[in-house]
């Protein structure tokens, strides 16, 4: 592992990765050489077991170099490998090791075309056959879907009547088989990141690779995903701030560098402060989590804050750059598009707010139909001054 956690080659190729919408093979070679993919796991799984600070620094360094590459690599080597190690057992170590060497790539197949974070709408189902299981259904808007070798797939279990186990399972599905079709979805930001759908038609799964699981337990493993997206957001914001500082020092407007203008200084200072706040929370959350705590609420808060912060910081960067900032191929134009992807990625931010509120003691979310104005007078327009009803 390069102790500086920098990825100069990947950074140099970032604009092209975005423009072509695909991660060049050299990036993968750099990732393998750097040891990045091994950082997050203990030696017995093929990892190097770095401490939390190192993990966070490495993640931020890669995300700064190229956010699309970061997403693809980290979904596989961190999130998917953690899901397998958390919910699987020794039999699944064989699936983890190639993710850490970079020989194989994994996707976390959870969302379906019908809706986002709401599992009630998910239809993908795993059924027993005489020989293992088959899976049928469609997963959509999945990082690495177009080119992954393995999908950690959330599915319903088709249960016999006497099966009292959970309704859900995680299935580790080999994607290189005839029952699997993949497609790309073009996307606004993180264009280098492969993103798309997976259609399962009687795809085969070995019996040992289906792990029954109550849905509520999944949040534990997904917390790694919130950390992943938060650090992407911090890195994108930091890159946008760095570009803004450089521009502000160089750009002459009205006879002096932008840097001499208080309005620009205020924007830079706010960005600096907000990024620092998020990064400190990321280090705290990662430290707790690597030490074995869940840190679920803390990392949930981080995800909410960091992703929305990053959108603001990149928007400020575009404004500081003026028209150059919206020119295609310019760094901040890319950061601006990338930042918004993090807000909607990994888990709807408002679902996280609900979760945090619940843990603050407000109890579970209670929904009711939007009929609360109906019994009031607030669904009527008023009469006018002289009592003429106009509604």
């Amino acid at each position, binding site marked *: 592992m390069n102790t500086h956690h920098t990825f100069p080659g990947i950074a140099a190729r970032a604009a092209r990765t975005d423009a072509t919408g695909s991660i060049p093979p050299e990036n993968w070679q750099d990732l393998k050489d750097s040891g990045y993919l091994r950082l997050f796991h203990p030696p017995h799984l093929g990892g190097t077991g770095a401490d939390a600070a190192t993990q966070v620094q490495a993640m931020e360094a890669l995300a700064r170099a190229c956010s699309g590459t970061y997403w693809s690599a980290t979904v596989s080597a961190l999130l998917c490998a953690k899901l397998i190690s958390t919910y699987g057992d020794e039999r699944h170590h064989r699936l983890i090791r190639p993710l850490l060497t970079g020989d194989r790539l994994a996707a976390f197949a959870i969302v379906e075309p019908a809706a986002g974070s709401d599992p009630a709408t998910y239809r993908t189902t795993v059924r027993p056959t005489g020989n293992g299981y088959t899976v049928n259904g469609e997963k959509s808007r999945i990082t690495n879907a177009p080119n992954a070798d393995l999908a950690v797939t959330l599915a319903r279990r088709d249960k016999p009547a006497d099966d009292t186990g959970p309704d859900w399972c995680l299935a580790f599905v080999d994607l290189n088989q005839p029952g699997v079709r993949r497609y790309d979805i073009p996307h606004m930001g993180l264009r280098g990141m492969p993103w798309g759908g997976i259609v399962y038609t009687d795809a085969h799964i070995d019996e040992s690779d289906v792990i029954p699981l109550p849905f509520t337990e999944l949040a534990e493993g997904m917390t790694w995903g919130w950390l992943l997206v938060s650090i992407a957001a911090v890195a994108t914001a930091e890159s946008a701030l760095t570009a803004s500082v450089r521009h502000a020092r160089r750009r002459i407007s009205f006879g002096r560098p932008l840097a001499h*203008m*208080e*309005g620009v200084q*205020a924007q830079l200072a706010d960005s600096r402060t907000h990024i620092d706040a998020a990064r400190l929370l990321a280090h705290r959350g990662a430290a707790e989590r690597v030490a074995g705590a869940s840190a679920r609420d803390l990392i949930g808060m981080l995800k909410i804050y960091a992703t929305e912060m990053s959108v603001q910081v990149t928007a400020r960067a575009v404004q500081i750059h003026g028209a150059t900032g919206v020119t295609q191929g310019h760094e901040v134009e890319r950061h601006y598009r990338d930042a918004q992807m993090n807000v909607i990625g990994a888990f709807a931010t408002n679902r996280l707010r609900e979760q945090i509120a619940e843990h603050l003691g407000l109890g579970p979310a209670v929904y009711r*139909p*939007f*009929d*609360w*104005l*109906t*019994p*009031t*007078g*607030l*669904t*009527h*327009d*008023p*009469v*006018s*001054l*002289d*009592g003429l009803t*106009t*509604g």
Partner: protein
Amino acid sequence: MVFPHHPARPDGASPSAKAAQELADRTQELTHRLARPTTADRDRRRQWDDTLLTALCDPTGPHLAGLLVPQSLGGAGLTATQTCHILDTLGEGSRDPGLGLALTVHTALATVPLRALGTTAQRERYLPRMASGEWLGALSLRQTQSTASPPTITARPAPERPGGWILHGRADLVALGPQAHHFLVIAEHDDTTRTAFVIDRDTPRLHVHSTDQAAMPTCPWATLQLDDCLVLPDAVLGTVRGAATETEPLLATLDWIFTSAPWLGIMRALTHDALAAAGTRTLFGTPLAHGQSTRFALADIATRGELAAGLLHHAAAQFDADGRPSRRDAAAARLFTVTAARAVTQDAARLIGPAAADGDHLVERAHRDALFFASTGGGTDVLHPVIAASLLGSGRP
């Protein structure tokens, strides 16, 4: 010049435009002369000044008590737009959000329901005396958002008086309560329908308790207590059990529009103070006025004032001529004005700096009162669904 483009004055072609402008001029003169010099002191002493009220309500003066009463009943007969303009002038001239609220409650919230929904007898009994300021009307600011908050006053048929009602319960936050001659009250029946009543203060078993309130202390506050008060049929305003379609939407809309109007003037006064501070205070050895952050803040302050005025005048104009009053536009105007008032207060405070030794401390008073202003009218929890319902529909899909 503070707001370079004041929202269009009442249309010059309107028959009463000249009269309205005269009232505005008198309001400005009188508030500058009588209200403003005493505002900080009245605020500190939580004091209501009856002399001031009398002067402001004088039909030969600003006639603030009768702006929305038809001329045939002794009022000034202004339009809603003209009234907004005068309440705005009142806010700017007096630099007193509490005084602005108190007069607005009487002039708009207590007056318009009687004018629009009252019987001829009710109109003739109340409106002339309300227009002169002899009788003040009051109501609880908790009753202006329909049943968003739980109803606290109940009505049941009076056993021995056909058509009469027994009212029971309490309502706090009654603006102008200690001074009022009568109260507009909405009471709930046991089937959750509601009726509006106008109840005179001398009704037996009606009690008015003066209360203290941290915000808007220049407005007198009370809790109204009804201990099984008997009221006669002529106290019913509008249709029995009809409040949900009559008084309630009207009160909500009146609150959203008219209690916001003095804040346009308060914002302009704050802009004035902030401009003055920008010219006199120095930071890092140069006048604040040279700093970009000062300049940007003042540009944004002025912009917010223009935008709020535009929304408020638009919503008010719908009450006039052939307009169709719209709860959505009124709610949007309130939502925007609240946010603007807060932002303007905050920006002005930054420019004026901590603990200015002189002046009437408008920025500190406005900051305190803006929080209260934001929490009345239902706050965002009521305004958001009202506006959203206009886009989405409010019932089951």
